[in-house]
């Protein structure tokens, strides 16, 4: 079971005040490294855009490639749980327009926000003024976003998509291609600096070639090891999780589900993992049909859009398919997932007992099959699909325990 990211950082920071200090230290290292790289100097930054000194590109892409290789190597080795790592969601059009505006700000002002911080703290007046301008800029955005709020939130929204999803390539291959692209750009940059910047590149340290080779070797290692599969992820947590299944701590009684649906403080998402045919015959009102074999497609959405009060309840006819879906979700680190105890069959036995058009099947029925026949495929229009919570007073042991989560996006630049 991957131990990183550390559990305390998945919880609200205010519960563990010392975590602020960790972020402070990370920020300190960030500022320190930016400064020693020359990023407090606007002329050095702007020279990038006249091909004279390509320090910005070299530092940025070396950082991206180094970070990327280390992230995916530790994920491949099972040290880091990549599903818990915050990947900025893709909002394509706001990203494109915002990116172009940032480019304008970069070449006019000579900084980006991070670099202006270290420029200001080394008393460069232009850096201090840029920070003040940036404060006005963030304020102006908050005040002016209202008229295009929907565009900002929805246009080109794809959620958590990575280059692996876009190009349908495995993680390792994307990592290797990005490394090779960066090395090619470094080679090109050095040529440009020689021709346009008139710099003597013969005295560049040979160590950089060893660094380049190391990156390529590590990228190939990531391809060879491969990222952990859902089965492997489940294997690493199965002991604990199987115990939870056996102790019935994650199976929610129909009465608790009904009460939770009526609880305004909870956002209950019901996922019906049966076949579409069964779903059409009868399903609980507002349950979404996601057949078990398609549950994987939902994982990125569930990871990105998890919030503190969201509870997912999985259901099948009995518990078989729902339990399989639960295992997948546990393996993929989706938070707050439960199983409907006894499935749809038990739900009907409680809430549909008096409905004359729902009749129990005589004799034995295989596990996880419907034990009822229906007058018609009415979907959620049977009365038992949406029982009134106040009419029922059922006895159950509450199982839902909300684990408060820090919202994965959490702010930051986002």
């Amino acid at each position, binding site marked *: 079971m991957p131990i*990183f*990211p550390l559990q305390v*950082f998945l919880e609200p920071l205010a519960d563990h005040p010392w975590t602020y200090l*960790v*972020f*402070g230290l*990370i*920020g300190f*290292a*960030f*500022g320190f490294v930016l*400064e*020693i790289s020359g990023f407090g100097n606007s*002329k*050095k930054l702007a020279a990038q855009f*006249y091909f004279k000194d*390509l320090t910005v590109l070299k*530092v*940025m892409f070396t*950082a*991206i490639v*180094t970070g990327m290789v280390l*992230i995916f190597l530790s994920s491949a080795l099972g040290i*880091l749980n990549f599903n818990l790592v*915050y*990947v*900025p969601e*893709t*909002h*394509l059009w706001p990203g494109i327009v*915002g*990116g172009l*505006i940032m480019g*304008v*700000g970069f070449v*006019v002002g*000579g*900084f*980006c*926000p991070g670099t202006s*911080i270290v420029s200001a703290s*080394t008393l460069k007046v232009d850096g201090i003024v*840029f*920070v003040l*301008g*940036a404060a*006005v*800029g*963030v304020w*102006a*955005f908050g*005040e002016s*976003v209202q008229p295009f*709020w929907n565009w900002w939130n929805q246009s080109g929204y*794809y959620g958590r998509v*990575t280059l692996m999803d876009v190009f349908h390539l495995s*993680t390792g291959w994307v990592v290797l291609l990005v490394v090779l692209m960066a090395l090619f750009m470094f080679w090109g940059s050095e040529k440009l600096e020689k021709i346009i910047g008139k710099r003597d590149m013969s005295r560049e340290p040979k160590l950089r070639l060893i660094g380049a080779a190391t990156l390529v070797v590590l990228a190939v290692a990531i391809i060879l090891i491969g990222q952990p599969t859902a089965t492997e992820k489940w294997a690493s947590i199965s002991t604990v999780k199987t115990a939870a299944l056996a102790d019935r701590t994650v199976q929610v009684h129909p009465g608790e589900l009904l009460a939770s649906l009526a609880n305004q403080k909870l956002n209950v998402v019901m996922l019906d993992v049966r076949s579409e045919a069964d779903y059409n015959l009868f399903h609980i009102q507002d349950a979404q049909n996601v057949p078990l074999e398609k549950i994987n497609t939902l994982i990125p959405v569930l990871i990105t859009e998890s919030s503190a009060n969201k509870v997912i309840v999985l259901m099948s006819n009995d518990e078989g398919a729902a339990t399989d879906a639960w295992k997948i979700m546990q393996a993929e680190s989706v938070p707050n997932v439960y199983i409907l105890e006894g499935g749809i069959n038990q739900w009907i036995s409680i809430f549909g007992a008096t409905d004359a058009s729902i009749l129990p099947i005589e004799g034995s029925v295989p596990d996880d099959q419907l034990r009822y026949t229906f007058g018609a495929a009415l979907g959620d229009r049977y009365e038992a699909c949406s029982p009134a919570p106040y009419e029922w007073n059922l006895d159950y042991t509450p199982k839902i325990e909300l684990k408060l989560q820090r919202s994965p996006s959490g702010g*930051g*630049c*986002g």
Partner: protein
Amino acid sequence: MTTAAPNTTRKGLPGRTPKPYVHPYLGGALLGLVLFLAFLLTRNGLGASGGLNRLTAAVEDLVVPGHIDRTPYLLKMAGGSLNPLDDWSVPVFIGALFGGMVSGLLSGRTKLEIIKGPNISNRTRLIMAFIGGVFFAYGARMARGCTSGQALSGGATLSAGSWVLMMCIFAGAYALAYFVRRLWN
């Protein structure tokens, strides 16, 4: 802000010549390591404009608290009893200020000065720095992140949107570079 601006004469610590910057690839590798450690420990990467955003919202919350509660964008950061400063991006921002400060002092690069191209006045440089800051931060909030939160952090985690955005930052800057060449050359 442009009146009595100090000119380019250096008022640094006496008797110290600034140390040279580290090699770009070394700086980049160290930055990548910091980025990796941030993700490994905390799940979040690095950020700069987010922290500034929250500091600005905190000031607004002090001055015009009612306004925050009527503005959806500010509401989710500072609405009601929410503390806009209760976010990881704020200590990262403050930490970066101190990190830059300590590095500048150690290397003798801390000097009250204006860095600019040879052909513009101090006044022009400062006006342009201000305008640039406004534009950059406005774009950063629209794109939900700047060069740190999107290009670096999203780049290293291979977010598709972050890569597009990164290309757009460079495209925007290169497209305009020729027209503002007098600022820097």
